[in-house]
């Protein structure tokens, strides 16, 4: 009878038959809960730890400072540009299975090289700007490339080298800012002992446009264009496919002829290059000081970009929005000073948000695994 055909499944729920609606609503609810908890945690911190304001005022003020008040969303766009660029680099290395966490250092090196070139070379303004940004890219790329080279030739974990190289970069640029022959501005026109570089000449700055009273540099356009390019290259080309294969399964990639060294080091170079470009863009864009290099120039933008890429789950187009969100938290927190609440609450919100965004995929993954294990163990 029908016993001739063995039914492969027991009463454990078959994998394919879970309705799509149910799983989508599951995902959405999970994300919503996590988001809510993250914002609530920050709100609780404001309520109980500070007597200066309630959480409602804090969130309204951040929203005002980020987008609602005149001229603010332009500023947010200007801040979002480097975050986006750093994040794009992180996506490229992340897709190749490499963990680059030294973007802050690569960014600072990029900014340092760009400053050095931008204040020294002659030539027409726009050309000099392009050359300067390109040198920033090369600086950042080489800085990350060291970590990549050590990873593939000496099998030194790239996580640790990028992390440590970040500390080295900050000190190196700090040293450059103390020396006249490197980055320090000439003594005239600079307050004594003030460690800053020369300002860029006006024709070497990224042009700024104004729409509805909001002024922002064109670097955000460049960032969005590059986001589309990264999305296309990773998703639609052979190079991108090989890179993703390397990230998913090294052995498979190896057997199908992907040169691990070349693609891995290449991914690191691109990743560092994006961070270096972000440094150059911060310098020439104008939303970070007076077009000059200062101490602690990175200002946590490298980390913000890294976190943004993580929240975007390595999707280039989604990253555009996340970068804007993170930039908004920064510009919004600038308005908090008036209320007396410490602006550091923006860092807290950003941190809890990232942690909350890490949870749902992890939970979903563990659940899916548990279902698979239940199904297989019920079968045997």
């Amino acid at each position, binding site marked *: 009878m029908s016993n001739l055909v063995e039914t492969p499944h027991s009463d454990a729920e078959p994998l394919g038959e879970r309705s799509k609606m149910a799983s989508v609503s599951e995902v959405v609810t999970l994300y919503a809960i996590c988001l809510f908890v993250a914002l609530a945690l920050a709100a609780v911190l404001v309520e109980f*730890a500070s007597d200066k304001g309630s959480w409602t005022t804090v969130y309204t003020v951040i929203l005002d400072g980020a987008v609602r008040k005149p001229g603010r969303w332009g500023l947010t766009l200007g801040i979002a540009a480097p975050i986006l660029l750093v994040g794009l680099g992180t996506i490229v290395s992340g897709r190749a299975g490499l963990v680059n966490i030294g973007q802050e250092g690569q960014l600072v090196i990029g900014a340092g090289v760009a400053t050095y070139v931008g204040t020294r070379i002659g030539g027409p303004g726009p050309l000099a700007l392009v050359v300067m940004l390109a040198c920033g890219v090369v600086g950042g790329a080489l800085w990350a490339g060291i970590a990549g080279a050590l990873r593939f030739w000496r*099998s030194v974990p790239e996580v640790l080298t990028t992390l440590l190289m970040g*500390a080295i970069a900050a000190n190196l640029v700090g040293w450059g800012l103390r020396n006249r022959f490197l980055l320090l501005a000439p003594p005239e026109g600079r307050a004594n002992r003030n460690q800053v570089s020369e300002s860029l000449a006006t024709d070497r700055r990224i042009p700024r446009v104004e729409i509805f009273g909001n002024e922002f540099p064109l670097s955000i356009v460049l960032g969005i264009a590059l986001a589309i390019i990264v999305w296309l290259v990773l998703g639609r080309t052979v190079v991108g496919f090989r890179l993703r294969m390397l990230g998913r399964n090294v052995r498979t990639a190896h057997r199908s002829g992907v040169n691990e060294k070349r693609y891995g080091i290449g991914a690191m170079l691109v990743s560092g290059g994006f961070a270096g470009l972000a440094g150059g863009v911060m310098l020439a864009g104008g939303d970070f000081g007076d077009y000059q290099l200062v101490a602690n120039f990175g200002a946590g933008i490298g980390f913000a970009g890294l976190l943004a890429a993580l929240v975007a789950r390595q999707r280039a187009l989604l990253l555009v929005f996340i970068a804007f969100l993170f930039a908004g938290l920064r510009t919004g927190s600038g308005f908090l000073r008036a209320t007396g609440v*410490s602006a550091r609450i923006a860092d807290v919100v950003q*941190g809890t948000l990232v942690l909350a965004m*890490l949870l749902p995929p*992890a939970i979903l993954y563990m659940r899916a695994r548990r279902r698979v294990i239940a199904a297989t163990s019920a079968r045997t």
Partner: protein
Amino acid sequence: MGNFLSALADIFSNESLYRNAMIVAVVLLFAASGELVAEKAGTINISLEAMMLAGAYAAAVGQGRFGVWGGLLMAAAAGLVVSAVQANMSHRLAADQFVVGLVLNVLVLGIVGFLVGSNEPASHVVDRLKVPVLSDIPLVGPALFDQPWVLYLIYPVVPAIWFLLYRTRWGLEVRAIGEDPNASDVSGLSVNKLRRQTIYLTGMLCGVAGGYFLYARSGRFEDSLIGGRGYIAIAAVIFGGWTLKGSVAGCLIFGLVGSFVLTIPSLGYQAIDPAFLAMAPSVVTIAAMTIFAKRVRQPAALARPFIRGLK
């Protein structure tokens, strides 16, 4: 040349060099001995910075209310809270351990900065305690035995970590899951549970490290107190080739390098920019990793999450 040598001799015969070096080395030692256990179990735990900062803040708050011992207990508890997030997210939910650690570093810095901005805790340095006889040893005597008394807490901790790792069943299990989690799992060990336990231990030790550093160094809490020393502690463990001896040596060397920054200018020498001393631990560690990477064997499952049924 003779000038240079006499300057060198001058610097190295200075007692305060060793005293400062020891103060920094001990904070690294607390953190690194915890990190060593975590790495032996297969986790590169980069949230040391967050754990230490949380510990330092808790110690600053606790000192006013419960005294120094209470402050240290609170510091350990604060480190434990941070480590609970790290452990459960990376070894229960299998989120990426580096990502979680990095986010925690940023998050705790934000929380602590926010709390300090709202109300600053009052805290102060603890007294020096001079151990008779031993502190009269020339050169290193005062560094080891004439220090704020909280520093002496490290002396039992390091041997205890050795005993725990190499002479107990728990230590054997920890080392086993760091080498081959699948085999350990089959032999009945709960890999992720053990890994979480090692991170809890790291958290408590790092919390104490933060509290100790507050009491021994500045006495006044600032959010820049730890200032990257968590990363240097990780570097020390790697520099030491994942052995306790090596890690201790790494901490002492990096502590000494750190104290050059203070000592050289105070003796009137202007030879070297402080930036190069500040980057020295990172450079040395990268160089050591590059040279020894293929000879020193790291725990085989280092930084690989364990999910049953997946290789």
